[in-house]
């Protein structure tokens, strides 16, 4: 009798497996816009690839972007943009990481510092403008992943830093809300920045004479602190400033500071696994209902029933007792 019942149950479960429509199930997906710094300091080769060769921060970031795209669950979307000086350029709005992966891969591989339309680098302004872009129609609801080394050139005057609280995007948001993640690219020790000619061939490195070492823009916040201050002829002092602006490392403190203002988390790029973990946080997830086919589960029950029906551990003889 048990065998007959289990056979009938198996038949019913198989029927379910055939006819069960896709059921709505909640899944976690992520919608990101990757914004990559393509200013000159990103050419610093302070990462190593799998073979131990030196690769630039730019190449490292590109590798990390592809690794993240591969690790995100299907249904997640990734958009791509680059920034230089103060403005971001969106290449495309987010596309599916599974279906459109070939396109993502091709375009990320083609990202290049030579796309830069101007050469300066003002990261806090660029971040501000990117967030402004994020609140527009095209990118609404996506989270920003901002790849940068934090090295600004020429050095900026903190007096003219943008005021993030003006952004509508950041207003009236709960304490744990995040607009995205800043990814610090680069190592902590300083390295030389490669210099290229018009054709894109490397012709050496930037030297101390090539770059300004302190901000000369606008007026200083507190003139009394500037050595040799002359109101008209030397608002920034008359002393020659020497520094290490021709060398570059990741400016973590700075990135963390603007990240705090922009309600973004900070992550220092080391290995891909760490970054993809940082990007799979609850704060960035979208809860979505996706139709899921559970037919296989029903078929598993049918299989169990069949196995029960044919299991060989029955008593060999069943005597019919009077």
């Amino acid at each position: 009798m048990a065998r007959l019942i289990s056979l009938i149950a198996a038949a019913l479960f198989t029927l379910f497996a055939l006819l069960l429509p896709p059921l709505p199930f909640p899944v976690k997906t992520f919608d990101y816009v990757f914004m990559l710094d393509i200013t000159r300091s990103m050419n610093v080769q302070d990462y190593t690839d799998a073979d131990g060769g030196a690769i630039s921060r730019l190449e490292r970031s590109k590798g990390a972007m592809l690794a993240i795209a591969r690790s995100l669950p299907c249904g997640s979307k990734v958009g791509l943009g680059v920034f230089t000086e103060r403005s971001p350029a969106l290449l495309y709005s987010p596309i599916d990481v599974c279906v459109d992966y070939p396109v993502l891969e091709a375009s990320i591989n083609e990202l290049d510092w030579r796309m830069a339309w101007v050469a300066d680098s003002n990261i806090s302004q660029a971040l501000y403008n990117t967030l402004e872009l994020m609140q527009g129609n095209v990118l609404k609801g996506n989270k920003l992943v901002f790849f940068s080394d934090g090295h600004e050139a020429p050095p900026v005057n903190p007096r003219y830093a943008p005021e993030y609280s003006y952004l509508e995007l950041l207003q009236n948001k709960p304490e744990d809300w995040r607009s995205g993640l800043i990814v610090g690219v680069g190592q902590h020790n300083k390295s030389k920045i490669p210099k290229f000619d018009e054709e894109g061939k490397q012709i050496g490195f930037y030297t101390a004479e090539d770059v300004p070492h302190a901000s000369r823009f606008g007026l200083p916040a507190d003139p009394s602190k500037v050595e040799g201050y002359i109101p008209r002829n030397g608002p920034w002092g008359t002393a020659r400033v020497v520094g290490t602006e021709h060398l570059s490392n990741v400016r973590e403190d700075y990135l963390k500071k603007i990240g705090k203002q922009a309600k973004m988390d900070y992550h220092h790029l080391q290995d891909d696994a760490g970054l993809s973990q940082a990007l799979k946080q609850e704060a960035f997830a979208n809860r979505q209902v996706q139709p899921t086919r559970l037919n296989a589960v029903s078929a598993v029950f049918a299989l169990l029933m069949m196995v029960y029906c044919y299991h060989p551990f029955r008593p060999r003889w069943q005597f019919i007792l009077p």
Partner: protein
Amino acid sequence: MNLAFSHPWLLLLLPLCLLPFASSLFERRPCASAELLALNPVTVWLNRLIVATAVISIASLITGIAGLHILEQTVTRTGNGAHIVFVLDRSASMNETFGGKTPSKDEQSKAQAARRLLSEFVSNRPHDLFGVAGFSTQPFYVSPLTEHKTAIQAAINSMETPGLAFTNVAKGLGMGLSYFRDQPHTGSRVIVLVSDGAASLDHRAQKILREWFERYRVSLYWFFLRTENGLGIYSEPDTPQDDNPRVMPERHLHKFFNTLSVPYHAYEVDTVESLQASIAELDELESLPLIYEEKIPRQSLSVWLYSLALMGILLLIAVKLLEKKS
């Protein structure tokens, strides 16, 4: 036909198919003497048939759970279409209206109008491959020639974001042409340059562009989004002194394009309607026979396997019901 499993490790369960050999569907009953039971060939074969049905049912359930499917296939077909690369101007002036003003609430900027119409165009041409390149002062690679329509739409979406710097047509076209480098030559090849300005090309750029257009046999469409009262492609100079590429870059760029050995069409567009009309004309002109690959998505065979299992199990139920009741 290429078959594959989504969860091949589940095939480890396949030995379960052997269960019907180890156990019987029927109750064992005592019998006074085995000799009394005559085994005729029909009985033997019926028994084998019943065991085989059970084996097949279990096996098809397991392969169904393991997700047997036919792999995604590409089929080469011929149709009408083109390989089209959009070379999009991302300079700051694209964010103004055709009147040259910042758009008010119910007006469209040039970029918005172009975006909407191009995106309609893309969705109306199913077999074409599309690529997108952008340029302002520098060119940028946006998306390769691809049949992924959602990605193309996403790239066209980017036109609605703020523009960048200046208009460097030569580099943009160079980037667009480079997309055809490794493409098989089939159907029409088209570059659609969408810009609202022009720039003078130096001799080197002219030589390279001429060479590349010839080598890749790409026809050129120029949608020039003319701002009201601005200079256009067909503007005539007032004085001979003004007839130079610095003063009238549009006129001279048009002259240069006319000297190319490939088909060239220029559309001076100054309203949303005329832009629509010129896109419609492009749609009509560019459909040569095209060999394209159509992807047939992977097909799950689970339904067939479960049906097979269901039939087997129903048969077993019938057999079981016929068993002699005690």
